[in-house]
């Protein structure tokens, strides 16, 4: 436990040093990244120890606040989240040292590094805190730190807008959490999260609803997701990676923690999560499909993956509620593993996108293309990430989705056909659409010919950025091949969530993982076949002449980059299919006349919920407020009249009866 505190201390210290270094970019980066690395290394050790089954003593320090206490504990669930948080933060820090260089002349990097380390530290505290007040403080510090990172480039109007949206959304989400935790505190008699209060069914449901909204806002469940596609693209890419990869997972952590505290779930909680998951997943990927800003697209995919996690949780809870331990285990296991996986591949993808931005200077896919030749490292890593996020074997995305599928199938054969069917259908549709989305993303950005000058002059990133991307890519492959190994470590949290007796839980968990071993075998077979096929092709081509030529344009001899399919046109069939919902705005200039002039076709898809739900609500509130302005009209006589009337009303109301 002490080492966790030490880790947090190191992080904060490094940040402070970076802040002190201020304008001196080199030292700021040194201290900032150094603190992050050191803290991560120190902090991961106890977490791994706990996962390996060596429990750590909880910590309780004196604390000078009228309410709450400073108490930390590292149970398997916390440990399972600590690992990706610290790991990704460390890699992002390494990446950042190079990524931030171009900004150095324009603005001091000290603050950026300070908030980055603060973000890491607060996330760490959030997942190990065992006291409501401490949790809330860390939670808000996390939000504020990330807010200042999001507004790093605040000279841009869009970034300021995004910052506002983010701050407001996260704060309003916290409001629900305040109620949630204070409710628990009242029932439990203390703000400690270790002493689990026994809630009446009604209160438990209220608490669950509060937690779902409060944590869901951070996690990015639709319709509370609106801040996410604004804030993540606005932040520097390594920060986007951390925010999307692990920060929003703290919302999932909170939800899981809440579930462990609220006792046995009624069925409707499970349905609720399944519904939320299906909606978030499908709409998330649809929105993503319609985006042409690479980072925005990735942000929407975070919504989608959060949806998948929710599906896992939901089916797990259905299993638990219906007394199907197998379904529960598989569902929760899948959700947990997907948390880790999403941290890996979404971190990788955002870092890749950052490298594209760094090398080609734009995020607009319509101006990119052909980068794989100029940025082989980035391109390859991005390809791995893309395949992983589509859930394709032999990569990690498949393993977690497989578990959730398996849970759903088990639910189907064990009599919960309806819930299982929803999950299967949602996952399948998400999978198909995600594949469409990432063939588009990868294909348009990295393949074909450059669509613009900037893309043509793109340059590959340096060692630091390559390194962190490569590590994440390797992680994707590793989990894909050795999923059972990773999951055998996560028996603790799964047991906590599934509410199974810890004593003999592990080996039933091992049994449940048997299919996964076969998956690994299958993945191995697949790899073998790949090598075989490659060898076959090489053998076939040996000694034959290999020509180079133009792309076959069906007889057209002078193809140009402008003839390629664009991102918009690639996605059009599907977005068109869902146009009733997406409300994609098209701007087309049709060719006219016998000698047609330039024609163009572009689309943009603003967030339906933002445009249709929140904007009207906020504008309505503003209108109402302005309509009340007349109260303060400046006429002193009427002000005095207010006083007289108030007195009169009070006297009549409170004394008139007596």
């Amino acid at each position: 436990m002490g080492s966790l505190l030490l880790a947090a201390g190191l992080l904060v210290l490094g940040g402070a040093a970076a802040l002190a270094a201020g304008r001196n970019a080199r030292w700021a980066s040194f201290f900032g990244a150094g603190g992050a690395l050191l803290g991560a290394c120190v902090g991961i050790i106890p977490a791994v120890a706990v996962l390996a089954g060596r429990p750590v003593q909880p910590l309780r320090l004196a604390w000078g606040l009228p309410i709450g206490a400073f108490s930390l504990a590292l149970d398997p669930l916390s440990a399972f989240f600590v690992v990706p948080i610290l790991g990704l933060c460390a890699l992002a820090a390494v990446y950042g040292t190079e990524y931030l260089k171009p900004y150095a002349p324009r603005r001091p990097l000290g603050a950026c590094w300070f908030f980055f380390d603060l973000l890491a530290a607060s996330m760490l505290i959030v997942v190990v805190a065992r006291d409501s007040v401490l949790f809330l403080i860390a939670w808000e510090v996390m939000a504020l730190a990330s807010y200042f990172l999001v507004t790093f480039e605040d000279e841009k109007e869009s970034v300021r807008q995004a910052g506002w949206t983010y701050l407001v959304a996260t704060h309003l989400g916290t409001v629900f959490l305040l109620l949630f935790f204070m409710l628990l505190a009242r029932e439990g008699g203390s703000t400690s999260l270790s002493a689990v209060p026994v809630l009446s069914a009604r209160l438990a449901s209220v608490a669950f609803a509060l937690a779902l909204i409060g944590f869901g806002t951070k996690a990015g469940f639709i319709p509370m997701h609106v801040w996410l596609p604004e804030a993540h693209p606005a932040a520097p890419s390594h920060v986007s990676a951390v925010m999307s990869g692990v920060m929003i997972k703290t919302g999932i952590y909170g939800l899981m923690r809440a579930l462990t505290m609220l006792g046995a779930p009624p069925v409707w909680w499970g349905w609720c999560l399944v519904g939320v998951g299906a909606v978030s997943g499908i709409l998330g990927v649809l929105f993503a499909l319609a985006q042409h800003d690479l980072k925005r697209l990735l942000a929407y995919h975070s919504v989608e993956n959060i949806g998948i996690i929710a599906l896992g949780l939901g089916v797990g809870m259905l299993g638990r509620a219906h007394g199907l331990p197998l379904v529960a285990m598989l569902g929760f296991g899948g959700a947990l593993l997907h948390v880790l996986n999403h941290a890996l591949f979404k971190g990788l993808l955002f870092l890749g996108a950052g490298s594209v931005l760094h090398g080609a200077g734009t995020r607009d896919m319509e101006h990119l293309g052909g980068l794989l030749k100029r940025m082989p490292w980035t391109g390859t890593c991005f390809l791995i990430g893309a395949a992983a996020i589509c859930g394709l074997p032999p990569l990690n995305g498949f393993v977690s989705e497989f578990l959730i599928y398996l849970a759903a199938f088990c639910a189907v054969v064990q009599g919960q056909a309806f819930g299982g069917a929803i999950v299967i259908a949602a996952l399948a549709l998400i999978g198909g659409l995600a594949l469409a989305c990432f063939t588009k993303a990868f294909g348009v950005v990295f393949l074909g010919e450059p669509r613009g000058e900037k893309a043509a002059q793109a340059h590959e990133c340096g060692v630091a950025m390559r390194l962190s991307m490569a590590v994440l890519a390797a992680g994707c492959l590793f989990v894909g091949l050795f999923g059972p190994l990773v999951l055998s470590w996560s028996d603790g949290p799964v047991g906590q969530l599934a509410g199974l007796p810890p004593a003999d839980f592990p080996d039933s968990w091992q049994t449940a993982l048997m299919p996964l071993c076969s998956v690994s075998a299958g993945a191995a077979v697949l790899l073998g076949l790949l090598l075989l096929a490659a060898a076959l092709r090489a053998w076939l081509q040996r000694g034959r002449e290999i020509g180079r030529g133009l792309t076959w344009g069906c007889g057209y001899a002078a193809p140009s980059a402008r003839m390629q399919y664009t991102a918009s046109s690639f996605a059009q069939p599907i977005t068109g299919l869902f146009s009733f919902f997406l409300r994609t705005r098209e701007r087309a200039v049709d060719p006219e006349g016998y000698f047609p002039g330039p024609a163009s076709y572009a689309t943009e898809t603003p967030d339906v919920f933002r445009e249709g739900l929140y904007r009207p609500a906020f504008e309505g509130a503003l209108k109402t407020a302005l309509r009340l302005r007349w109260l303060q009209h400046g006429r002193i006589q009427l002000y005095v009249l207010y006083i007289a009337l108030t007195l009169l009303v009070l006297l009549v109301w409170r004394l008139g009866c007596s």
Partner: protein
Amino acid sequence: MIWALLGVPMVAGAAAFLIRPDGPRRLLLLAAALAHALLTAACWGGLPGPALGGYLELDAAGRLFLSLTSVLFLAAAVYAVGFLKSAGHTKEEEDAEGFLFDNAPEAVFTGCLLLFLGTMSLSALSQHFGLLWVGIEATTLVSAPLIHFHRQRRSLEATWKYLLICSVGIALALLGNFFLAVAARLHPDLLMTGRELAAHAAELDVTWLKAAFLLFLVGYGTKMGLAPLHTWLPDAHSEAPSVVSALLSGALLNCAFLALMRVNAVLCAAGLADFTGGLFMGFGLLSMAVAAAFIIGQTDFKRMLAYSSVEHMGVLAFGVGLGSAAPAALLHAVNHSLTKAMLFLTAGNLLAAARTKSVGEIRGLLRAVPFSGFLWLMGFLAITGSPPFGPFISELWILQGALSRHHGALAALYLALLGAVFVGMATIVLKMSHGEPSERLKAAPAEDDPWRLWPPALLAAAVLVLGLWVPRPLLNAVKEAAVVLGAR
């Protein structure tokens, strides 16, 4: 001791009117503020005995508010020196119409400032309700010239409204005094102090007592700025010099609050806690709602701060109304005073830099005036109850109280209003802070006057500390005060 607490500022104030040269007068101001602070600090060693036959006595509650006043005044005095150096004799440009005006003579300003401290100390010290009334009315009268420091129309108008509305309100409180006396007529020789009355609460006439409370509520509520009696507040706070606004918001409102609490104590002793509690909660939530409605889309950042004061007075009233949350409310009073004073002092610096109060014309504070911009942003986060700052803790504590009394719906409403205020202020403050500096700020002078930078910075530090660690003595003091003020 008590006489010293009253005498130092009074005498110094009187003297300040007579001293011609600026230097010594400013020195006097600082010296008096420091002396007062030291005397107050001495009171923490042990409470001084009563004076004037029990009319004046410093109890735990009085000490809490007196210390608050004293600290804020010290900060304000330091700030005022810098303020007077820059604004003392030059003609200034009115920001709305842009004509030139000059300021009130510095002697008057300084003198009234010190007298203001004296009268506030009086209202913190007096146990006798009549004397309490005298003190609070006096604060109005001596602070009016302060609001009219800038000799121009808007501040004049604000002064007039402040004077008349508060005088009328407080006159009603005087009537409340008499009602109280009537309620206690069975004991003609009873000393009209909170303690005595509470001791004989059983023999008091309930109807008259209730009526008296309503009059006090309306009277002192006007001074405290509870909606819909708050109408003077935004005008006065926005037009007064920022240093005065800081004192008005941070110290003066608290005095009225203390007075109300003293009356409340009597009624609680008489078993009317639910009667007063309901009223307090009602006025509290109403004030928060009105404040929220006026903060959203506000175009003048000092008015925004003023309405935020209304909001927090509402929070205090809500907390007191809950009864069990009285300590939380008192702690929140401390947090609010420090934060709000810091914000107003910062606002003064921003005003000096941008020469406008209009939100629309201010962008990029963080780039143009980094130090003040940072304080401004931080103050916003603190005052809206974000961790890790003091107000968060006290507001959370109040929320806990509300839930523990099973006022679930009211708690939700309370949170909703806090959220609305946050959104409103965030929209304004973030617009002001980020981005490239706007025209008004292009030519902003460098922030080089330590007199005007240190006070807000130190207050900000205090607010941050209070968010992470509330010193044991303060916590005990708050709890004792709550007991003195009859919390259940």
